[in-house]
């Protein structure tokens, strides 16, 4: 069984078509145009996004294949990030999941963008920049993180206590929990959500290191 670190890879990771973004309508149109102008297919860029409305113009089986492929990649990314505790994927950087040296295939830039966008649409990821180069992966939704924080608070008897943000992230109590090493952005979002619900209050200190939380669970 192939592995990436300690992450077990599924069999279809070695299936070359898994790394080719299934054709879209524009690809069909592009194919026709290529014929018209006698352009070599290998020169053409096949991977393009099509708006969902135009999905109907692609054949049903192709649509199904495409949906399956997208879904497999989404779950794959989430799974991997969860086990490896990865919170951010940078598109321009090498990401081991996106290429398989054994079969010498890797996802094109467009394909990566497409799959991450699919995650964003599902609410399991967020773009951190306008240029869509950095993606925040929410393998736990913010709501789930909020619940984890509450459980953490209860487990450690901090219902009325105070803690700094840093302590939540890297303190002794958080060791062994999922909170350990959590991405700061995600943590702040979860805390803000809880603040909104009146479960805590965030207060600023003299510097970011002093930022803290007063629980009132």
């Amino acid at each position, binding site marked *: 069984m192939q592995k990436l670190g300690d992450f*077990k890879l*599924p*069999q*279809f990771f*070695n*299936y*070359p*078509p898994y*790394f*080719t973004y*299934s*054709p879209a309508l524009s690809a*069909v149109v592009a*194919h*026709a145009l290529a*014929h*018209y102008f006698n352009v070599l*297919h*290998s020169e053409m860029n*096949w991977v393009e996004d099509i708006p969902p409305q135009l999905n109907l113009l692609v*054949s*049903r*089986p*192709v649509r*199904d*294949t495409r949906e*399956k*492929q997208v*879904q*497999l990649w989404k*779950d*794959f990314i989430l*799974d991997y990030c969860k086990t490896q505790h990865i919170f951010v994927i940078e598109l321009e950087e090498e990401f081991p999941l996106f290429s398989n040296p054994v079969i*010498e*295939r890797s996802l094109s830039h467009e394909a990566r963008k497409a799959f991450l966008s699919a995650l964003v649409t599902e609410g399991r990821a967020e773009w951190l920049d306008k240029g869509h180069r950095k993606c925040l992966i929410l393998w736990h939704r913010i709501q789930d993180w909020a619940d984890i924080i509450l459980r953490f608070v209860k487990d450690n008897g901090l219902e009325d206590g105070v803690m700094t943000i840093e302590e939540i992230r890297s303190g002794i109590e958080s060791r062994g929990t999922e909170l350990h090493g959590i991405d700061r952005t995600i943590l702040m979002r979860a805390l803000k959500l809880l603040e909104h619900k009146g479960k805590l209050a965030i207060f600023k200190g003299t510097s970011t290191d002093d930022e803290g939380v007063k629980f009132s669970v």
Partner: protein
Amino acid sequence: MTYYDPPFHLRNKRSSRKKRVVQRTEGSMASSNNFFPSASVTSSGRPVFLPNEIECQLLSAVDLESDDGPSFPSLKSGLLILTTHRLIWIPSNSSAHSNAIAIPLSLITHIFSSKKSIKSIFHSPRIRFQVSLNSKSLVVTVVARGKGDWDGFLPKFWENWRGRAWETSAGGSTADGSVTTSISGTSSNSGGFYLNDGSVRMVGLAGILRKEQEMWESTDKSLQEAFQDLNALMSKAKEMVMLAEKMRQKLLSGSNSETNAGNNEEMGSKEEMQDWLLSVGIISPVTKESAGALYHQQLSRQLADFVRTPLERAGGMINLIDIYCLFNRARGTELISPEDLLQACTLWEKFDAPVMLRKFDSGVMVIQNKSHSDEEVFTRIKTLVTKPDALQAGITASDAAMTLGIAPAMAKEHLLTAESRGILCRDISPDGFRFYINLFPEIDSDDMHMVKDHGIYSLWVRVVSA
């Protein structure tokens, strides 16, 4: 009891004086026809021509009648083809094509002049002539009940009969059954470039060039006559202008008013004009209605015949562009336009041709046998793509082309179609464009590590892990 001898040109096969006719129809001699020699017709309804025989004119809905009594066969409403050598009559019912007959012009002893009388204005145009068959003399009347160009037919008939083209060609070539027509410049003979006497043979082209020569000569003559008398020229010019204007009006008014479509009289004469314009080489401004024109019908049939051999060689499917090149190359002169080709293909469904035009999703158009089956091709592709090598490395269009026995471009269309049916998946890489068997349906979406014991997915895993 039969009281006739077989037609003399088929009686003695060893007679070298007579030209041999290529027999291509499966049907035997018509039982109803005891009079005229049988005419060979291809499976698409085109006549098989003799060497050097040139097609000159076609008339539809023609009856052949005779005063000779009840034993004369019923030859009603057929297609009459005037050639330099014969009058060929083909029944319009395609199942009766084996009953086609031909009257060699050489057997016509006399053509009666057609008198214009009050009666003739109301009757269908006709011409009577005397034929000598089996040492009997017979008077035959050709009655044109259709809307053909009778005024063009009649002088041509006289001309061809007087021209005696069969005598000039009887002397020379070693007829090996090759045929030529005026519409197609096809020359498929294997006799080589030289005749027995050492002169260069230009089968096919000779007749066309001769015809053109004659046309030039007659045009030249009439021009000379016109120039002789300037007044005559002026009046002729006025006539021509009026005629041209009338034609233009008629053709254009036909395309604008939809109500005229019901008027058969108008449609008929318009068809005539269109045929005339087409034969002179002028492109008709009314393209919608040219679907009915006789020219396109005959072209369509001819194309259906021609296409058979290249289709077989290409494995049952051939690109339309390739046929365009092959067909025009075979024609030599009188090339057809891409629009004509397309039109000819679309007419195939009207007379049940064994071939059909097909358009792929990608826009590529091919000609394929009607009997072609997509499912059969997909089965073969599936077999190919589940072989161990293909499971590992996939297949390219060239691999498929070799297995299926067709051109790579056609193979690619099949692969893409298979992909759109969900049978295959594409793989694009620096190595090129490849296809694999589609495994996605068998991958479990809830448990991505699950591989069922049976099925393509498990087979693939086994092969790849080996």
